[in-house]
């Protein structure tokens, strides 16, 4: 038994690696997003701090650390203090089972993806605590919206994961990656779309960012936060984006697999690629209204997820050993038909309520 086989050394080493990875990548993501958004909006983005503005996230971090910590006088002080912690810790815990390389993860749980789904739901509680304890009507509206949105989008998310699990035959993250001789995005195109849209809603990004809609409810549930607590919420947003990118990479894009380059580098490239899609969508589309968001989840995504699950189950049962390319083509065709059909049948209308 080498030193590294000792469980606690392995644990400590990976804790350090994960913390370093998360913090560095989050800073990188903040920079990529601001610069990328700037270029997409025909402007430059940050370019003063450091060459090409690379040190901008560092400047941001220093700024929030030295700001005054304001606590609302009539707010619930304990809940106010706990809310960022409750929101941040579960997101960090997700990274325990994300495989950077074959065998290189903190804990190779054989229920990996189930653990992720369970833990990530706790962040919703933190958001609601923040909205309630601020003693502010705007943040209360935002918190209510957020809880409704998070709950509604959990279900299609989980159902699309089950499709992947059926094909891979295991809940463990490493086994899912190893089972991807061709990336599951081709075998499960509908599942990928549902998971992608659900992930956007889970991490409160455009077009589902009505929780922190700047133009309506002025920063939403973190209106009253400043200083380090606000930095925690800001971190939560980007950590969740990083976590979702990592999960999408693992489940659908083949994790660390790829020719030529070392596997860890392939993982990074895929994560950054998925994040690029995230902020590209943010720069492009307007946001939806809360009742439209919920209607979309329940009337559009849920039935599609159920149909996807049904078809996947039939395929695994009947064509278990068939050529994968047949399944790919059939699935792509089914996805195209279903998406077109649902977009024709489903109207995102609003409606006036008789008062």
């Amino acid at each position: 038994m080498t030193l590294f086989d000792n469980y606690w050394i392995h644990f400590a080493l990976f804790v350090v690696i994960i913390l370093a990875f998360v913090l560095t990548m989050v800073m990188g993501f903040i920079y990529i997003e601001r610069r990328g958004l700037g270029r997409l909006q025909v402007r430059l983005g940050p370019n003063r701090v450091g060459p090409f503005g690379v040190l901008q996230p560092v400047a941001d971090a220093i700024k929030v650390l030295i700001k005054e910590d304001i606590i609302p006088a009539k707010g619930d002080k304990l809940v106010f203090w706990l809310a960022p912690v409750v929101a941040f810790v579960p997101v960090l815990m997700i990274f325990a089972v994300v495989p950077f390389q074959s065998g290189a993860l903190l804990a190779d749980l054989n229920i990996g993806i189930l653990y992720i789904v369970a833990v990530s739901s706790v962040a919703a509680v933190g958001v609601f605590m923040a909205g309630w304890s601020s003693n502010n009507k705007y943040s209360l509206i935002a918190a209510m919206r957020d809880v409704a949105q998070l709950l509604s989008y959990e279900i299609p998310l989980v159902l699309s994961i089950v499709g992947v699990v059926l094909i891979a035959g295991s809940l463990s993250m490493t086994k899912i990656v190893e089972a991807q001789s061709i990336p599951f995005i081709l075998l499960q195109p509908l599942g990928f779309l549902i998971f992608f849209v659900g992930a956007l809603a889970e991490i409160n990004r455009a077009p589902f960012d009505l929780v922190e809609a700047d133009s309506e409810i002025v920063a939403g549930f973190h209106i009253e936060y400043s200083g380090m607590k606000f930095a925690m919420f800001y971190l939560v947003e980007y950590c969740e984006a990083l976590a979702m990118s990592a999960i999408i990479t693992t489940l659908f894009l083949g994790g660390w697999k790829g020719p030529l380059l070392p596997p860890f580098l392939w993982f990074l490239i895929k994560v950054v690629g998925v994040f690029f899609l995230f902020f590209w969508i943010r720069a492009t589309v307007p946001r939806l209204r809360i009742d439209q968001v919920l209607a979309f989840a329940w009337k559009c995504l849920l039935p599609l997820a159920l149909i996807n699950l049904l078809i996947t189950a039939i395929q695994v049962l009947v064509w278990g050993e068939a050529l994968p390319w047949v399944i790919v083509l059939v699935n792509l065709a089914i996805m195209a038909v279903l998406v077109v059909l649902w977009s024709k049948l489903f109207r995102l209308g609003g409606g006036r309520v008789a008062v």
Partner: protein
Amino acid sequence: MAIKTEPFVLNVGPQHPSTHGVFRMRMTLDGEVVVDMEPVFGYLHRSIEKLAEGRTYTQNIPFTDRLDYLASMSNNLAYVLAVEKLAGVPVPERAEYLRVIMAELQRIASHLIGVGAFLNDCGAFMTPILYMMREREKILDLFEMVSGQRLTYNYMRVGGVSQDIPEEFLPALAKFVKVMPGFIDEYDQLLAENEIVLARAKGVGILPKELAINISASGPVLRGSGVKWDIRKADPYSVYDRFEFDIPTGSVGDCYDRYRVKVQEMRQSVRIIKQAMEQLPSGEVLTEVPLRMRPPEGEAYGHIEAPKGELGFYLVSDNSETPYRFHIRASCLINLTALSDMMIGWKVADAIITFGSIDICMGEVDR
């Protein structure tokens, strides 16, 4: 069994990222639905009407700049038209054409901000408004060439315009007019049939046609509701009767119609500018009037089709250097009359979008 709910009062207060200036709405909400709305004005009241009674007619022109500060050229034009009507001052041909060019350029600039701010309220995170700012910068450069200013131009004078255009103006204008339709197509490509914009704006904040006429709405608000009434065609001022252009109208009167009317008006403005450039004669640009002019006793009401609606000035003169009464018919204030009708029954997000689609500027509302 219905759940018991309790309405609460939310103050969309004077300081808010999307109230287009300092404007306060006291909304009573039942969950997300707006049950009652009361607008509160006066945060930008500068008593321009009273101040103008102490200054000469020419000294009042900079005051008009600061009414709707996003459309200064149009404000200037409305005021000098009213004074010219009152005093009977003729305007040279070249000045009339220059006035039309400036007014139409100003209409494009104002609509760019109006449409951009509306889409910003929809949530498109600054991308459309930044693209439109890029075009507005070109217009502001043109205005800087003629008047030296970027926002409050003070360009028109009683009897013409203050100075002639420099020689680099017309080539720059020709270049702008050539590329602008392409840019409007670029905006339309991503936004006109966008599923989310349609879902947010279609059928939302409807102003029926009869109500629009009854509340004396004007500008894109009136035309969006289906009334084909444009002062440039109904009561042509300056040389507008020499140009060919259409009046875009909506059909339903929802936010989407008002947004489309503004985009199409931008295209028509480019058309007018092209024709004005071709017909531009040479000559004087200003009829000399005394610095402290004394119009004969009487009154006059001069109005124009400003970008945001019908802007009118009612002037009463008592044969002295300063006006006896200086009243501004503020289109933005009157357009807001039916605001609570358009918001009640809708959700908070819709209320914000409806307010953004009316496109007001608080400088004109409060004066």
